[in-house]
């Protein structure tokens, strides 16, 4: 799976003038949910790979595409940094959010800033991949489809009791009368 998405990842990092011995970061952002449901956890995973020929310094990842009023933070931070990222190394970061409203949401890219060499003064700015638009299902619709409906089945069982219980009672009464007569004989 990882090698597949590496092929798909977009090379949007701005080229630096010092390409021979500079760091180059590729970053991806992906939503790990099968279903995005209002009030349930939304798992976002970021991966940053250094495919350049030097260590990257002061790598900062900041994601401003989850406004506070629409997404509640459960775990993880949306603005993080790493001191260094070695050549050929990768880091992954996860953030857990809770969508507060159903509807369509457009998941856009997060920003990655870093210094490609130790002496460089200009910070390189790049972006992660964007998962794109996805729908956030309302909690009621999700539960209607996926919850075990135990209360509904119990109610149904109680409702069927009269139509099954009444004939059963009649039969039981007549059976017990018949048995008593048989014993008398």
């Amino acid at each position: 799976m990882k090698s597949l998405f590496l092929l798909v990842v977009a090379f949007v990092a701005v080229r630096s003038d010092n390409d021979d011995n500079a760091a180059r970061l590729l970053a991806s952002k992906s939503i790990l949910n099968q279903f995005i449901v209002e009030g349930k956890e939304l798992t976002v995973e970021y991966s940053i790979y250094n495919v350049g020929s030097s260590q990257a310094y002061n790598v900062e990842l900041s994601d401003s595409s989850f406004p506070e009023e629409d997404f509640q933070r459960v775990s993880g931070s949306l603005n993080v940094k790493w001191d260094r990222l070695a050549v050929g190394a990768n880091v992954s970061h996860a953030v857990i959010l809770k969508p507060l409203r159903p509807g369509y949401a457009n998941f856009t890219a997060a920003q990655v800033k870093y210094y490609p060499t130790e002496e460089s003064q200009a910070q390189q700015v790049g972006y992660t991949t964007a998962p794109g638009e996805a729908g956030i299902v309302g909690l009621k619709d999700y539960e209607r489809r996926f919850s075990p409906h135990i209360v509904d089945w119990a109610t149904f069982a109680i409702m069927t009791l009269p139509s099954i219980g009444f004939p059963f009672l009649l039969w039981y009464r007549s059976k017990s009368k018949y048995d008593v007569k048989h014993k008398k004989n």
Partner: protein
Amino acid sequence: MATSTKILALAVLAVLPLLMNASTCIGPQVTSNVYTTSEASMSISTVFVVEVAVKCNNGEKDLLLFADVNGHMVPATQSGTGKFQVSWSDEHKKLPAGTYGVRFFDEEGYNAVRKEKRSGTDGSAVTPIFTVNVKHSGTWTGPYVQTEFVATCVALLVWYMAYRSKSFLMS
């Protein structure tokens, strides 16, 4: 004279860690917050997120932490002064329920573990600055038996009992 040189040597040894460039944390006070994936439909792989806030007795601000995650050394993400986060993910089957210990090292510890790993051992002899225990109660992949299945079975059972007593009566 001998005692004064001894005292001098001891003083130098005591001051030496402070003079070293590598940042160390003496007497860390750690508060941790742990999250693990609870439902499989909310994530295609189980994700563990460990957030720690570290306060050092020596007031160290530029602390660099590395974490040992399942035998793999990763740098801890900095999410604020003294706040770090370590996250990792894997398939649901590979991360079953249980307690996972995450060891945190500073730069010295990290280099020591790397050295040990290069010489063949697994680096578990190095003492970490602190350890966080992650309790994972397993990822719920759905009920064992669907309630609809149970309801169907009960209905069939009731029907079978009625049919049996009816055929008994008729015979």
